[in-house]
């Protein structure tokens, strides 16, 4: 489990770099290289900490809280190994709640700055979050019905032992719903544009405009980890091949790490390649998209009862 957290912590910026590199190459640019996010983080971490006048402890607390919750999620979700010592307490609901806690902390931090952009970004992020969280819950819940437990590790172990069970209407509906909310949660096109400089169009970036130096580094790092965890959870739930189960030896763990890295990198690459050919939705269309994904998650739950 420690290994899993380390892999996520070290690999997440590389995933972000990979996705940027894929986009750059597809657009005919050279790109900055896969390691650029790590270099950015190092640069930011060396700067002094500054906070805008009038901000309080909420502003200070948001980045560590976001990073902390993300690390706990990275430990609890079955990415490299399905066996987690947190299994007893960290089920699906705990994971969704932890993700929400991080988002809410960041939104409060954005509000704490008192600027128009912080408030605007926080309001938009909450709108998105209100639709994303129930969808994550429902989509994974639909998968859990088959197994009879909301423990993520157990769901993944069950799927790993019978890979063909993934091919069912329930899984497909849940997969689509989860894919849409993964994109929304990580603030990517068509919901948000992570590379824009247009402050009026931002969602996630508008909240963190006032952060600088190590605080910003922490947020960027945590955001990359959240994306990695979400993609990892997605692969774990629908393509758990190679994942280590309880009592696996060191070689199995190594295989699991490589498999995890490959799967997430592939998925990230596909996501980035897809983004290149997409445009950003009008903000008022985003709830329609997310409501659609929620509906699919709901259908998945309903289908799991009827088809069980």
């Amino acid at each position, binding site marked *: 489990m420690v290994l899993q957290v380390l892999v996520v912590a070290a690999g997440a910026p590389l995933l972000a770099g990979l996705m940027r590199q894929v986009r750059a190459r597809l657009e005919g640019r050279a790109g900055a290289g896969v390691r650029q996010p790590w270099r950015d983080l190092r640069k930011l971490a060396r700067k002094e900490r500054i906070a805008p006048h009038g901000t309080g402890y909420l502003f200070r607390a948001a980045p560590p809280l976001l990073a902390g919750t993300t690390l706990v999620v990275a430990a609890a979700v079955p990415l490299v190994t399905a066996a987690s010592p947190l299994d007893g307490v960290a089920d699906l609901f705990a994971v969704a709640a932890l993700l929400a806690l991080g988002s809410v902390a960041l939104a409060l931090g954005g509000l704490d700055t008192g600027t128009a952009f912080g408030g*605007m970004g926080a309001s938009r992020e909450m709108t998105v979050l209100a639709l994303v969280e129930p969808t994550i819950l429902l989509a994974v819940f639909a998968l859990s019905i088959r197994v009879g437990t909301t423990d993520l590790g157990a769901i993944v172990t069950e799927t790993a032992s019978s890979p063909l069970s993934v091919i069912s209407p329930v899984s497909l509906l849940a997969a689509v719903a989860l894919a849409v909310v993964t994109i929304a949660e990580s603030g990517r096109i*068509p919901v948000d*544009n992570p590379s824009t400089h247009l*402050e*009026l*169009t931002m969602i996630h970036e508008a909240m963190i405009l006032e952060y600088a130096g190590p605080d910003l580094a922490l947020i960027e790092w945590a955001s990359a980890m959240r994306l990695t965890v979400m993609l990892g959870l997605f692969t774990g739930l629908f393509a758990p091949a190679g994942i280590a189960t309880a009592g696996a030896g060191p070689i199995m763990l190594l295989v699991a790490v490589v498999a995890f890295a490959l799967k997430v990198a592939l998925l990230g690459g596909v996501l980035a390649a897809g983004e290149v050919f*997409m445009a*950003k939705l009008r903000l008022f269309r985003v709830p329609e998209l997310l409501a659609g994904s929620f509906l699919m998650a709901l259908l998945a739950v309903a289908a799991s009862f009827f088809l069980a």
Partner: protein
Amino acid sequence: MTATLPLVAEIGPGELAGCAAELLALGHRVALVAAHVEDDGFRLVYLFTAARPARRAELHVRLTEPAVPSLAALSFPAGRFEREIRDLYGITPEDHPLPSRLVRHHHWPRGWYPMLPDAGPPPSFGDPEGPYPFGDVEGDGVYEIPVGPVHAGCIEPGHFRFSVVGETILKLKARLWFVHKGLEQLFEGRRPEDGLALAERVSGDTSVGHALAYCLAVEEATGTAVDPDSQRARAVLLELERLYNHVTDLGALCNDVAHSVLQAHCGTVRERLLRVNAEVTGHRLLRGAIRLGGAEPLALPDNARLAALGTEVAEIVGLALGHGVVSDRFTGTAVLTERAAADLGTLGYVARASGLDVDARRDHPFIDLGPFPVAIRSGGDVLARFQVRADEIAASIGLIERLAHTSGDWSLPDGRRGSGVGIVEGWRGTIVHRVELGEDGRLAKVKIADPSFFNWPALPVALGGAIVPDFPLVNKSFNLSYAGNDL
């Protein structure tokens, strides 16, 4: 073909409103208003232009007191010129319905008018008027978003104040005029050939448009004839400028809806157009090729290459409009109605996208281009402004090709007139320059009217009811110049 000479009338302040109303009723528009400082007071020059047939009229009004009856009730652009002149020269427009400051920011000292000859160096700026007040919008859940003047991108300074409820814009106040350079004053006292470099730099992306308008004005004032080949070369340069700017805008509009591949493709087309520019003039932004009395291109552009680029642009446009999300973002966003566009006196692609049939290349030609399609769309939304640009790219490539084969004749009435007007359809819209020469042949007064000056007020009007995240897209679809607006 022959240039039309203006009707000039010296009138008193009392007759101004009557004469102006008559001219406006005859289909004229206020093209510019220039203030001249004279020994015994001021002289205001109102230039009116009308199309089909091309007509011009100048009203000269001598003032002994710094006050003039306002024409704002008759023409919205005239009211804006009056406010500009009030802020820069201290001439009060009487009974102006919206007498608030335009150019003069709050920290400018009271009673200091920078364009007066005895204004001297700027005094220290203070805080005589207090902070700039937010226009009050009241209601449940209304909040305010101030943006700029320093932006995250590499763009010119403009301060925008949105009054918003939810995400819907109730009111937008655009605060411009951060880049006042005293440009018109810099012309004064120079020899006409020394003013050309200044004219090329009025707005960096419109060097040909402004240089050409300046040259036409000076040539009319001095009675200089221009040979037909030079006029043709000038027309080609003008279209080249339109091409690269329109392609840039198409790419930027795609980028503002986060479709980066289309922007990258527009970027490559733009780069190839800039290289064509460099071959034609030796300068990627087309500077230095137009001179007084002629034009000196190094070469003429290769029509086959331009045609190939045109096909590529058409393909990009097809891909953009065929993309569901992109066309959804463009369609119906920030509609400027035909009525509003006409009332505000908009020009260029903004006017044409709202269904107004205006194009100075046809209405005030300096060379006979023959019949060509004026790109008109009636939607008034971002989509229409996108399509007008796309149509104009195709039309420009056609014009450049036709100009390679035609020979035009052009004649000017001989003799020095002392003042002249140049009207050019730059890529943003109609540019008007008016120059007056002194007894010694030096520039006594240059007045520049960039289309941005006319189009800026249309942006807040079009944005009524739009949503905040669409503002950058809408702003880009207007793509107005800050430097050309604030001289």
